[in-house]
């Protein structure tokens, strides 16, 4: 159920090579932009774990992204921690705990309720940060020293260097992808796939489905925390906008635009959407207007995302399960009201 077609595998390898050699040819600005895109891709991929694989549509995923970023800024300022070996686990744990609490409350509901509740709780955290002067209020916080990555006193990567940060982010993106693949192939992955397709049946087979959904929510939250951590480290700055509903919405757009339930789709989606945003914002101050129409266009004309175009061209003769699966998801999820 999680087999990757060969064409996709080739594409992924080619993309990885392209990303690996990219900094040798690119200007500084673009190195930084692609770094940002890769970080967003990790975030979107974590959301895909929920939306595409577990069937949980969260509209509050940015909360965990933001918490990861704020956690780094806070421990760096208040505890003087700089090593990645302490700050990263703290940031991921903070996101995980928040996801555990919010998930525990939200998972009791499903469908539209779940969408509204995750949005509401994320907004609550947004206001907590926004109204808290110790966290810099609406201005946000600075990260004065970037995390260090060293073993036995030797620096492995210097995150102050843009190119090295780029490669570090690429490493994180690749590792996140492999991590998600591992989870999806595991016994746990089978259960969440079953829950997405037919939750009552999964429960009747003997799985306490709430627990699995919560576990999925927490894992996705932790991965989002990693992305938030990197976002904070890249720009040396966090503000409440990281947790905003717009950030959550953008991640959902990326997942759908790229193709949900594929993991690599959200990576493609991140590149397309953020490059588009970057281009449009250089043309007009009111670029969000165009993005709004673009989002509507995607919903109406490309609901299965860019990834579906790749597989569609290749698989015309053989009747594979790729196309059929998405229709099942749609009908399954629509039936819950």
């Amino acid at each position, binding site marked *: 159920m999680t087999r990757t077609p060969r064409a996709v595998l080739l594409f992924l390898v080619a993309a990885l090579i392209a990303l690996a050699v990219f900094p040798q040819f690119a200007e500084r600005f673009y190195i930084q932009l692609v770094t940002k895109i890769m970080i967003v891709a990790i975030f979107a991929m974590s959301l895909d774990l929920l939306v595409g694989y577990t069937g949980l549509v969260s509209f509050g995923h940015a909360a965990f992204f933001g918490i990861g970023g704020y956690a780094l800024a806070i421990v760096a300022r208040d505890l003087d921690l700089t090593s990645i070996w302490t700050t990263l686990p703290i940031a991921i744990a903070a996101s995980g705990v928040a996801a555990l609490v919010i998930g525990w409350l939200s998972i009791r509901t499903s469908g539209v*309720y779940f969408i509204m509740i995750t949005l509401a709780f994320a907004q609550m955290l947004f206001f907590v940060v926004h109204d808290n002067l110790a966290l810099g209020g609406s201005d946000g916080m600075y990260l004065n020293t970037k995390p260090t990555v060293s073993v036995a006193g030797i620096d492995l990567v210097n995150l102050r260097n843009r190119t090295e940060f780029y490669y570090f982010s690429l490493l994180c993106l690749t590792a996140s992808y492999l991590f998600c693949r591992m989870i999806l192939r595991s016994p746990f992955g089978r259960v969440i796939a079953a829950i997405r397709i037919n939750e009552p049946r999964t429960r009747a087979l003997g799985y306490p489905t709430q627990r699995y959904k919560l576990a999925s929510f927490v894992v996705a939250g932790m991965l989002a925390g990693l992305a938030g951590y990197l976002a904070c480290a890249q720009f040396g700055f966090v503000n409440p906008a990281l947790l905003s509903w717009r950030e959550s919405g953008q991640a959902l757009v990326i997942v*759908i635009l790229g193709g949900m339930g594929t993991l690599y789709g959200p990576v493609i989606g991140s590149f397309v959407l953020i490059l588009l945003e970057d281009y449009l914002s250089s043309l007009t101050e009111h670029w*969000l207007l165009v993005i709004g129409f673009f989002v*509507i266009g995607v*919903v109406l004309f490309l609901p299965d995302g860019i990834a579906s175009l790749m597989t569609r061209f290749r698989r015309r003769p053989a009747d594979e399960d790729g196309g059929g699966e998405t229709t099942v998801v749609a009908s399954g999820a629509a039936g819950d009201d």
Partner: protein
Amino acid sequence: MILATQLSMDPSFFLIQLLNSVQYGFLLFLVASGLTLIFGIMGVINIAHGSFYMIGAYLTYWLNLQTGNLFLAIALGLPLTVGLGYAIERLAIRFLYARDHLYQVLLTYGLILIFNELQRLIWGNDVHGVPTPPGLNYSIPLTEAQAYPVYRLFISAACIALAAAMYWVIQKTRLGMTIRAGASNRTMVQVLGIDVSRLFAVVFSLGAALAAFSGMLSAPVSSVYPGMGEQVLIISFVVVVIGGIGSIKGALVGAMLIGLADTFGRVLLPEFAGFVVYALMAVVLLWRPQGLFGEPAR
């Protein structure tokens, strides 16, 4: 604690907070009832619902500038928002009826981006005040130091009138009968041979107008600013989650609870002001995940 004792000693202070709660609750009720109607009957979750609130407020601000009369501004603005709701339903929402909630959320998210950007294009990023209409800009003295603005009472009165009218429409008219049938059993409406596409367009326009009307009434009290739509949208979600989705009665009770919790939360627990309404939602989720008046999921 100091405030708590003040509250118990000073009944007029308590009264003011209570009136504020009710007034805020009614405004929320208008927005939330539109949201819950649209979901209950059409099965559509409309994230852009708050945008109609924002549009109502901005239209009032603008029409009030042109005409110099708030009531005239509302009277002119309301048909415009009904028309806008109708157009949005025909141009975008109607493609969503058979679709997963995920796509409904995304499309209406796109609408928010468009509405917000149009608002910036037309009216800019500034916060605008809307003057209270001349006949209503005085206060009723309660004690020597405290008075209550009449316009706030007017808001509550207007909302009560509207809620009564809604009740009448839903209970007594043919349209209301269809709406009730649709809310309890969507397929039944189709079986009864009612023109569903027209019913949906009407419901969506009415829902949009309810949110817009709420924004219009609140404009003189809360002023008009970018992002006001999302703020009210999210609180309306909390209202609907508490009350139970699809239930108008739930929307009313939920809105009043939130009005009370928010107003008194700000006074009694100022450090946790932003928290209180969400805490209330969390408690309801633990106790009755389907909301106070919602049908249990099966």
